[in-house]
């Protein structure tokens, strides 16, 4: 049985599945339910400064996009940070932590970019017994208009400054939550590291208009005839999040900086992908908001069973294992050749591979052979692009088969070169480096 216990910057939890700071973690009632369901940790919904709490809209806060059978693929959110009194939240956090000492409880914080504001809230949080703090530099809606959230996360100097204050005024581990609404995620990550952060967490939500009401010509969710951009999350954002996690994990300047992975994690497999790309644990929100807290049970058993099947004993065995295999395009082996292959026994003859290839790619898949509907890859045309695999509705019906070294590539008429060769040395590259004499 794989050991799923997680130690993230000294914060211990029985498994690496935390609930992200978001609507599901706004109060003790929800968090208690989450812990009962088995979540390893919770990042409490973001606390603001003392005083009258923020207010939320009283109309719709969410919009969505759906896939087949109305499966929720992406969710958009315009809810702000907690709209409950700071001391109510702090009292509940303290009580919950006492009730669940083995679970991780993290306080997410967003106060103005002033040293005094951070200096005054940190002791209050520390008093709850929380295991750590997460700096919310990510929320892209509402609070950013007031100079907080993503407005901070988009300016590396601010990130470094605030992280430094926090490290100065609290003994608690500091996790800096990053916004994806920037051009290069490595810049804010480096700034957080320079400020002394213990970890980064990412991604927060992405600026988005999820859909438009075509009857009223207004973005959804529409509040009294108007809409605003919200924060996009859910399965649709996972690829963006994975890339950003990997970028930080392989950046020499931030290499080794602990990462809490967030973004569209819905199943154990999603979680495992974040872990192997360098995340020390993961945070989940939309999947819980879609299906309820019970999904963590699938995540725990799925991850554990997969680790058992593969012989991985603990999370350290898998964390970051895929990072060395993330590289730049220029280092990909141009002598690697693969061809698509269609398993005729599992082919259902829908023809989608053919029309995708015929209309939009390389005209490398037949439609008829001897007058019979038959889809087969023509190796002399196939560039191995993987589009047919992507559009085929049957899993594993089409596979990419590597041509072994020495085998003839029917398309180029040349045998497969056994040597690794990339763009940096390719003769067509005007910047190609001369091979050493």
């Amino acid at each position, binding site marked *: 049985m794989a050991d799923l216990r997680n130690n993230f910057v000294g914060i211990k939890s029985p498994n690496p599945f935390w609930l992200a700071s978001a609507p599901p973690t706004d109060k003790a009632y929800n968090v208690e339910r989450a812990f009962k369901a088995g979540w390893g940790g919770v990042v409490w919904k973001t606390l603001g400064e003392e005083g009258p709490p923020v207010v939320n809209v009283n109309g719709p806060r969410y919009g969505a996009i759906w896939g*087949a*059978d*109305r499966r929720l693929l992406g969710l958009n959110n315009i809810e702000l940070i907690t709209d409950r009194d700071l001391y109510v939240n702090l009292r509940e956090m303290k009580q919950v932590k006492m009730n669940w000492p083995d679970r991780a409880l993290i306080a997410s914080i967003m106060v103005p970019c002033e040293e005094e504001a951070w200096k005054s809230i940190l002791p209050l949080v520390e008093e709850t017994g929380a295991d750590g703090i997460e700096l919310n530099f990510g929320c892209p809606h509402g609070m950013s208009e007031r100079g907080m959230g993503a407005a901070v996360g988009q300016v590396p100097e601010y990130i470094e400054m605030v992280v430094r204050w926090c490290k100065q005024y609290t003994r608690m581990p500091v996790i800096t939550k990053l916004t994806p609404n920037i051009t290069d995620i490595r810049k804010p990550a480096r700034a957080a590291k320079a400020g002394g952060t213990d970890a980064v967490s990412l991604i927060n939500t992405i600026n988005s208009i999820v859909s438009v009401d075509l009857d009223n010509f207004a973005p959804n969710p529409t509040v009294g005839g108007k809409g605003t951009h919200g924060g996009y999350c859910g399965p649709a954002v996972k690829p963006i999040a994975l890339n950003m996690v990997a970028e930080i994990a392989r950046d020499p300047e931030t290499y080794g900086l602990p990462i809490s992975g967030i973004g569209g994690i819905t199943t154990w497999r999603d979680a495992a992908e974040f872990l192997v790309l360098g995340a020390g644990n993961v945070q989940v929100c939309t999947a819980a908001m879609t299906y309820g807290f019970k999904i963590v049970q699938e995540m725990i058993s799925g991850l554990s069973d997969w680790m058992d099947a593969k012989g991985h004993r603990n999370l350290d065995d898998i964390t970051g294992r895929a990072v060395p295999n993330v590289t730049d395009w220029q280092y990909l082996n141009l002598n690697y050749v693969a061809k698509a292959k269609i398993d005729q026994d*599992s*082919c*259902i*003859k*829908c*023809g*989608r591979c*053919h*029309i995708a290839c015929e209309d939009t790619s390389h005209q490398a898949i037949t*439609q008829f052979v001897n007058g019979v*509907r038959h889809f087969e890859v023509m190796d002399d045309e196939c560039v191995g692009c993987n589009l047919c695999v992507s559009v085929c*509705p*049957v899993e594993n019906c089409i596979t990419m088969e590597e041509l072994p070294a020495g085998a003839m590539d029917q398309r180029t008429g040349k045998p497969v070169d056994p040597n690794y060769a990339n763009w940096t040395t390719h003769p067509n590259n005007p910047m190609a480096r001369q091979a050493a004499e």
Partner: protein
Amino acid sequence: MGTTQSGILGGRLPLADYETNFSDLHPALDRHEALVASDRCYFCHDAPCMTACPTSIDIPLFIRQISTGNPIGSAKTIFDQNILGGMCARVCPTETLCEQACVRNTAEERPVEIGRLQRYATDIAMKENKQFYTRAATSGRRVAVVGAGPAGLACAHRLAVKGHEVVIYDAREKSGGLNEYGIAAYKSVDDFAQSEVDYVLSIGGIEVRHGQALGRDFSLGDLTEQYDAVFLGLGLAGVNALRIEGENAEGLDDAVDFIAALRQSKTKADIPVGRRVVVLGGGMTAIDAAVQAKLLGAEEVTICYRRGKEHMNASEFEQDLATSKGVTIRHWLQPKRIALKDGKVAGIELEYTTLVDEKLTTTGETGIIAADQIFKAIGQTFEASGLGSLAFEAGRIVTDAEGKTSAANVWAGGDCVLGGEDLTVSAVAMGRDAAEAINRAFAAAMPRASAVA
């Protein structure tokens, strides 16, 4: 629980039971169900379902239009190929046509519900009386269509769209042909056949003359004289005879008449049925008669077919439907003699059959099934007069690939034609294609426009 009194009588059941029994066999999909069902379509390229449809409806496109919330556009896609798409959605044996070809069968043995989705879209458009077609400028050409069934209606509609004037002649009181008279009541509820006729005729330019029988009230020669072209969509008016002892006994009826009477009855309680019913035959007509006899309150209904299950023309689905309603299907039995009592049907003696060298032969064994009513459903025959010297083969009208007969300016389609498939949807395709052929013939006959200097 109804009465088990012997004899052929109506009102076997409490009134409310008739309503339940004859309600819609496949209730319409609601919007949510339609979206779920349409999501399953893969939007295949050169889709096998489309190839399997005799009218070549662009099925992937119409289903995609449903899934994107455009049922009206979907209906137009259907009607472009098949103006009777509403009825075909109800009566097509989809399990042997489009749905059999669906690639989902290969992976899951469960096709996309194409028929029900087609009904969803066409119902919406027809309920809104959405008209997609306008008539071209009047051509001055006049076409006579004989038979207001699926072939005739499809032909008339396409001709009207092209700007030609159409007069339909039909021997019956109502239009629709088998759609009105030949389909089990639970497949076409709420007088759908007549609603559809109205929808088709609303294009304009089509006059229907009822009570006009070919050979009795007019001849083909009369029509070719008066019209620029004639389309014959006559259907099959005759019924095969048993040619056994007792053939004319009281209680031995044609299944087609029984089915027609049921369709014309509002309550169904007035349709008499036996306590023990035997239906002879193995096609859709046999199933329709047997199931409805059961639904009317017959205590025992037995279909006797002279060959095996695998030879039955009725689809697997129809056979299962019958057995689910309590009908017994017996194979390898052929009628030998009608047993009579007081001149009325009392039972039927059947001979066991078998195949010897692929030839159907009797084994010599016989058995008797008690019955107070027997329905013949052993096939229909082409029966018509007043056709002059039209060429026939195997008792059907011979046409070329475009539906042109041996006579000048006369086309034909549907069940009356050699190669007709006994399917509403095939009749629609033949009527539509004949209209296109007639239109092309008119165009070819037009003097070429002279160039303007």
